[in-house]
């Protein structure tokens, strides 16, 4: 992290939303801005109060190209999304958003909450971080708004200026919360084996489990694969000591921990018809060299040797995997058996006897 000196000399700061983007309802803009300030207030003593007229410490406005007295200009769609000024009078602390961008509450366009939280970091005195996991990294990266967006680097940075939050009750966590693997409702986005370990993926996080000793190692996905976006939806280990990761209509091939050049590629290069937009789960049966891709209530079979989809697919999953009647979130193979996951449940399935052996909780692999 880096910071500009001095930070604000007071903990109580005001902000004012000067105008709005037509892309979002005023209510959604207000909510995104308020939530973006909360990101910083939960890890510092700072308190943000909104005012509706007059000069606030942090004035927030949307503009295009040359806008008002701002010495910096915007550049139309894409490129520069927003900018902010370090603490101080006049323009100090102010935040401007490029109205030529498509501002949203979700993953399409640019998420106003995420960009605002980044710019408020500048307005509080932080400069850009070289840490690709940090919110203060200069390039935009979408992460699910339900996740706490500050990395340890961001928290160290802002706390080096303002200190930690006063010992308030624990609703003010000082460290980012990550999903609790032993939570009763724990579910996973994707699971794959990698040699002797099993890798569980969810949001920005992954856990590496070594079945013969039950300790799980947690890490951020970006630590291993900085260029991958979080929220991987499917993953499997093929017969060539590689893993394939899927998100939307794209997939990456990873060998060792390196993403192979030339990826991501579109999933239709694997032989899916154009109508298939994403893959829910995938598993390669090491005994047959065939990979099953599960999408909705159907599955496709891919021959790893010929690198082509088998004919006669898709088929209904439940027809060939009796008992697996719900959409498959994730699946992997261990000692010949398949483990199908949906929400907080998993089913151990014998592909030779073609029957479910038992039902378990999704987090049964973690020493809960």
């Amino acid at each position: 992290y880096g910071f500009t000196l001095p930070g604000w000399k007071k903990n109580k700061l005001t902000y004012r939303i000067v105008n709005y983007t037509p892309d979002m309802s005023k209510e959604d803009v207000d909510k995104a801005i308020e939530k973006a300030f909360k990101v910083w207030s939960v890890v510092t003593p700072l308190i943000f109060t909104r005012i509706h007229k007059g000069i606030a410490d942090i004035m927030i406005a949307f503009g295009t190209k040359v806008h008002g007295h701002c010495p910096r200009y915007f550049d139309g769609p894409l490129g520069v999304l927003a900018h902010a000024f370090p603490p101080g009078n006049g323009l100090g602390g102010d935040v401007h958003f490029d109205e030529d961008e498509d501002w949203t509450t979700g993953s399409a366009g640019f998420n106003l909450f995420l960009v605002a939280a980044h710019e408020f970091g500048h307005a509080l005195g932080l400069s850009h971080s070289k840490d690709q996991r940090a919110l203060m990294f200069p390039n935009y990266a979408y992460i699910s708004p339900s996740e706490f967006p500050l990395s340890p680097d961001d928290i160290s940075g802002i706390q080096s200026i303002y200190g930690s939050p006063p010992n308030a009750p624990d609703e003010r966590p000082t460290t980012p919360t990550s999903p609790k693997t032993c939570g009763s409702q724990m579910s996973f986005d994707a699971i794959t084996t990698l040699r002797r370990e099993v890798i569980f993926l969810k949001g920005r996080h992954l856990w590496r489990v070594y079945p013969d000793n039950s300790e799980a190692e947690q890490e951020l996905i970006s630590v291993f694969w900085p260029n991958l976006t979080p929220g991987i939806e499917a993953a499997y280990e093929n017969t060539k000591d590689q893993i394939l990761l899927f998100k939307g209509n794209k997939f990456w091939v990873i060998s060792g921990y390196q993403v192979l050049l030339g990826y991501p590629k579109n999933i239709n290069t694997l032989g899916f018809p154009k109508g298939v937009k994403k893959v829910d789960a995938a598993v390669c049966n090491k005994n047959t060299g065939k990979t099953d891709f599960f999408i909705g209530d159907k599955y496709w079979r891919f021959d790893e040797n010929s690198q082509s989809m088998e004919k006669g697919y898709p088929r209904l999953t439940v027809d060939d995997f009796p008992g697996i009647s719900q959409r498959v979130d994730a699946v992997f193979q261990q000692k010949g058996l398949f483990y199908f996951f949906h929400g907080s449940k998993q089913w151990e399935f014998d592909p030779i006897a073609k029957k479910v052996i038992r039902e378990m909780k999704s987090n049964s692999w973690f020493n809960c």
Partner: protein
Amino acid sequence: LPIHAEKDNEEDAELVQNYLNKFYAVEPDPNQLGWKINAETIAGKLQKMQQFFGLKVTGKLDNETLEMMKKPRCGVPDVGL
């Protein structure tokens, strides 16, 4: 095809110039308590940018560096604050 490639090159060159001037060309000027444009060469600024983003530091424009410059981002300079 060559003409198209030439046009691409021109656009890329302009993008690189803009990017480096916008995000890697300012440095604090103690005398004026503000910023001033530094006289560094393009190669010097490119090296700074490549070092910041963890790319191969060559001072030369390569595909990876150009791709990084094309990503949507914040308008605050990366260095010099």
